[in-house]
């Protein structure tokens, strides 16, 4: 039991810090740059993303392990995962609109953006490849959500200050954001080797 929890904890730390999906694996960058201009959009996106991530990780694991592996059609994983995620996002959009309309007004715009996020496909794919158990893939999904949230919030706080700074004209806006992201990614390499997996 102890080693089980340690393994889960290692998974969360690995997905959020050591192999951060944005800064180490360079995934989900278009959403990252688009949403990190203001702190409130960044926080909204992080919350929506983490919740959708966990649910889709669970659903994809069930479809993969219980249906696709016994039928030996695992080569279809990319198509099937995308289908599952798109369906999930659409259904949650419809359901949220009715059930929690206040929440929908605040966070509904991010739902559609999430389906185009690379990370949401990467997590089930990695879980399938590494043959995680159900709980492990949930932990992995949670870790990825936390890592994405961390990346967004760091970036948003820096970019809000950048708005007021004296940036040279060719670098204003996106180029400066890329430079800053590169520097943060450099800093995150300091985490490598923290846990040997």
């Amino acid at each position, binding site marked *: 039991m102890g080693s089980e929890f340690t393994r889960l904890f290692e998974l969360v730390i690995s997905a959020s810090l050591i192999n951060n999906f944005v800064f180490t694996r360079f995934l989900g960058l278009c959403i990252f740059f688009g949403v990190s201009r203001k702190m409130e959009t960044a926080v909204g996106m992080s919350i929506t993303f983490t919740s959708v991530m966990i649910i889709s990780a669970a659903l994809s694991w069930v479809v993969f392990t219980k249906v696709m592996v016994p039928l030996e059609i695992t080569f279809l994983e990319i*198509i*099937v995962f995308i289908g599952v995620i798109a369906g999930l996002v659409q259904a949650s959009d419809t359901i949220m609109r009715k059930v929690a309309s206040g929440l929908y007004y605040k966070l509904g715009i991010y739902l559609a953006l999430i389906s185009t996020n690379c990370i949401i496909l990467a997590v089930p794919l990695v879980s399938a490849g590494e043959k995680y158990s159900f709980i492990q893939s949930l932990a992995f999904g949670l870790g990825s959500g936390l890592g994405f949230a961390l990346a967004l919030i760091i970036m948003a706080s820096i970019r809000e200050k950048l708005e007021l700074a004296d940036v040279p004209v060719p670098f204003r806006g996106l180029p400066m954001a890329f430079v800053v992201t590169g520097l943060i990614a450099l800093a995150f390499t300091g985490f490598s080797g923290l846990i040997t997996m």
Partner: protein
Amino acid sequence: MMKRPVDKITAVLLILILLVAAVSVAHAGVGGGIEAKEKVDLKQLMTWTLVFLAGLGTIFGFGLAFAAKRFSVKVDPRVEQVLDVLAHAHCGACGYAGCEQYAEAVVKNPEVAPNLCIPAGAGGAEAVALITGKKAEVMERIFSRIMCQGAYSTSERRFNYEGIQDCRAAVLAGGGDKSCIYGCLGFGTCVRVCPFNAMSMSEDRLPVVDLDKCTGCRKCEAACPKKVIEVLPSSKAVLVACHSKDKGGDTRKKCQTGCIACGICVKVCPFDAPKIDQNLSRIDLDKCRVCGLCVTKCPTKAIVDFIPVRGKAFVTDKCIGCQSCKKICPVSASSGEAKQKHIIDQSRCIGCGLCTAKCPVQAIDGTFNAAEVFRLALEKKRKTAA
């Protein structure tokens, strides 16, 4: 094309590098879960693939259709119509989180007033009232007023500030670089925040409000870290443009146009509107009749008259010689014998409008409130006649 030997070697090297990259990519990447097999049963594979994909598609299709039906939200078409009419500044002046929220609230809730969207103006309020079947009262326009005249040249600075040129940043540096801690810092946060481009910075680093564009959305009021912006109805046009609670002597040292609480305004006001409290004069806006007398008497010019042009009063032939204007005039500009047409000395008249309002036969014209006074008198006549 590839004549020289060095070109051929480069080409071969490139191909080798590409091959190595291709091979390594096949091993790297985000994972697979795909293992190589010795034999592949193609027929079974094809059938299961088709069955699985078709099944998944069907399940999802039905699931989504069911969700759409079960969780459908009936959208009142009137909400869309109201949304079209609103100003969409997302300013929050109506008190709701966004334009959509207000549109929904005004259509669904019978208690919500249709004229809360201030940027949409009277036209918008009427349109919303029409759509929702409510009555709209004409709300008075409100403007933002800058309660500070301490420009760069007329006020002192405590230190040289070389930080971010934004008031919200400057205020973090010990309350800002101005000697007077109650005054406007002049870095233009309000100008940047205004969604209607109604504010601009003057040459002397004071914000200037364009009254045609200002809608009273209160964004500048919220953004100002010194809280020198007050949003007030347009009729409240004589204000003490200073928030300084420093003693008179200190205020004078720090700023040439600050209120020194000398009390002259309190003495001259015929309506007892200004009050001195904590070394600052504040005008009671309910008592003030916007006559502008205190403006002329203030020694530091701290009180500002926001009426752009004050026309001088003159007496028309309707005058019955009742002497009411002579009694009420604060500068004794009106003169005349009883039962004779009175005359107003244009050089003394300050355009306060008190005589225009007081005259029982509306014989005085020319002041800023003349049109309003005549309109009200006409309405009263119609009411008593009907």
